[in-house]
């Protein structure tokens, strides 16, 4: 364990050995810089799922026989691990969904429909991912709510200059803990306190936060927290919604079906207890077990070390790109590596991000190009799209150098 971390920093060579995607020799070698879209998976995660399927798969919470009992035990143990990882008060507060998007829709459908009325104010931010915008746009349309947005400053921070006015009369405040475009870490606690003072409930989209920083729901002050397995070394097909128990208890169910009921009659039903009340149908069993293993790996690395590694790498990347390309390469978002995550969205010499990404791919460098599911933010930044390089535990300075080198070929082809 100790060998993974040298001077508080991850030993990337050793970390990389945990990730089978690096096993295959590739020419050019893989320079994967798109973990903000989805991370790769360590062996431990794939093995946990595989072992489950090969030895003890059965539907959970239903069978009396030993194999089903073992399946249930592994599934619920994963929930307990996730609960501990984010500092939840109990496993009852941890709901498994299919992704962060479903988690946020669950809040909108269940808490939203039960508590919001025509004319009520919902406050979001201009840097939300579509996952924390569209559910509220849909609900606003159906219930006739009023939407208000917290803006962003020119250096890419959340504008909290007049929170009190902005949150006045709000019933719900939704914000991202870390922007998937700008990397900005938002002052969740400050907004949550102001929101609570205004009588609002606070929904935090932590999809980019939980994979990269120590998370403590109590310290963040949130009421709901959504995140997604595939961005934190876990499999696809699983997300999490954490919610305060008292709120979850009072909420009506969302999806109806097996597992979430305690009794069903032809004319009605009664709900099961938390967390199962919100888990209709066969849950993502193997996926939960995989997520549990992912949490185990992140704990083994240590979230402080994960964060320190990213700050160091981000700082190196900002220096390198500025040194090489000066004003011709604009990185959107905060300049201070400590106030942001390892997500660098950039514009380069007027070359379209699509073309940048295509040319970089030829050098084995995988970056994302597009609106990153944040079209309103793109409009705010005055761009149609950006190229985005993002880092995780398996990236190192050589990856940054490869990116910087490959950008030269873009200029050759497109600068005229």
């Amino acid at each position, binding site marked *: 364990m100790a060998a993974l971390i040298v001077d508080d920093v991850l030993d990337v060579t050793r970390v990389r050995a945990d990730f089978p995607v690096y096993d295959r020799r590739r020419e050019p070698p893989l320079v994967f810089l798109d973990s903000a879209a989805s991370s790769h998976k360590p062996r431990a995660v794939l093995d946990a799922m595989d072992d489950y399927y090969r030895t*003890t798969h059965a539907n959970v919470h239903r069978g*009396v026989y030993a194999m089903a009992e073992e399946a249930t*035990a592994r599934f619920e143990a994963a929930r*307990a691990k996730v609960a501990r990882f984010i500092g939840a008060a109990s496993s*009852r507060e941890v709901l498994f969904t299919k992704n962060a998007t479903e988690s946020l829709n669950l809040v909108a459908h269940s808490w939203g429909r039960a508590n919001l009325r025509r004319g009520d104010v919902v406050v979001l931010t201009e840097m939300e991912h579509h996952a924390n915008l569209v559910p509220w746009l849909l609900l606003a349309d159906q219930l006739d709510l009023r939407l208000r947005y917290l803006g962003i400053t020119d250096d890419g921070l959340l504008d909290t200059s007049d929170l009190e006015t902005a949150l006045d009369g709000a019933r719900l405040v939704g914000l991202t803990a870390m922007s998937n475009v700008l990397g900005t870490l938002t002052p969740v606690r400050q907004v949550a306190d102001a929101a609570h003072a205004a009588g609002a409930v606070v929904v935090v989209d932590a999809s980019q936060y939980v994979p990269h920083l120590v998370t403590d729901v109590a310290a963040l002050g949130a009421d709901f927290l959504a995140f997604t397995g595939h961005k934190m070394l876990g499999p696809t097909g699983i997300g999490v919604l954490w919610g305060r128990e008292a709120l979850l208890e009072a909420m009506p169910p969302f999806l109806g079906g097996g597992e979430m009921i305690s009794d069903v009659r032809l004319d009605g039903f009664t709900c099961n207890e938390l967390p199962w009340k919100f888990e209709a149908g066969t849950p993502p069993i193997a996926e939960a077990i995989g997520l*549990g*293993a992912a949490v185990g790996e992140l704990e083994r690395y240590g979230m402080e070390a994960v964060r320190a590694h990213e700050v160091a790498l981000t700082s190196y990347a900002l220096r390198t790109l500025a040194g090489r390309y000066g004003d011709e390469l604009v990185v959107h978002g905060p300049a201070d590596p400590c106030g942001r995550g390892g997500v660098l969205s950039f514009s380069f010499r007027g070359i379209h991000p699509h073309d940048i990404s295509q040319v970089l791919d030829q050098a084995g460098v995988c970056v994302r190009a597009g609106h990153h599911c944040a079209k309103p933010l793109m409009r705010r930044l005055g761009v149609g799209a950006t190229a985005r390089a993002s880092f995780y535990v398996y990236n190192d300075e050589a990856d940054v150098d490869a990116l910087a080198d490959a950008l030269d070929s873009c200029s050759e082809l497109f600068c005229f």
Partner: protein
Amino acid sequence: MAGLEDLYREIILDHYRNPRNRGELDCPPARRAEGFNPLCGDEIVIYLDLDDDGRVADLKISGQGCSISQSSASMMSQAVKGCTVEEVRALNTAFKALMTIHESRLDGNGNEIGGETGGDGSGTDTPVPDPRVSLGDLAALQGVVKFPVRIKCATLAWNTLTQAL
């Protein structure tokens, strides 16, 4: 694997064959509470009559279920008759503690999983039982913890009784 003899002790089968305090009471004056085991469909109805001192004057049980839920209900009915509400709560606490898995276990990869599992699987933090409380016959149910799925069967009657209190 734990053997069936851990689960199906003779005294349990006796309570299953000859359930004590089966029946119904008029409501009011009695209180009535219904419980379901969502896993298996077991249903239990508890009729509870408290006297003016807050003691369990009478208690009847109806519904249907497996040997564990039925025998647990039957033993419970014997144990709580004549008790004050506080005494019933203390018994409930002691029984829930009995139904709690304290060992941590290893999964197939040698990782520690689980840790403490709340008695009825609801994840409720288990309050510390009063050491003076004696469970009597109910102690025979301790083998149930080796079969975690059945814990909900054993605690169904108690959870339903708690609702009625």
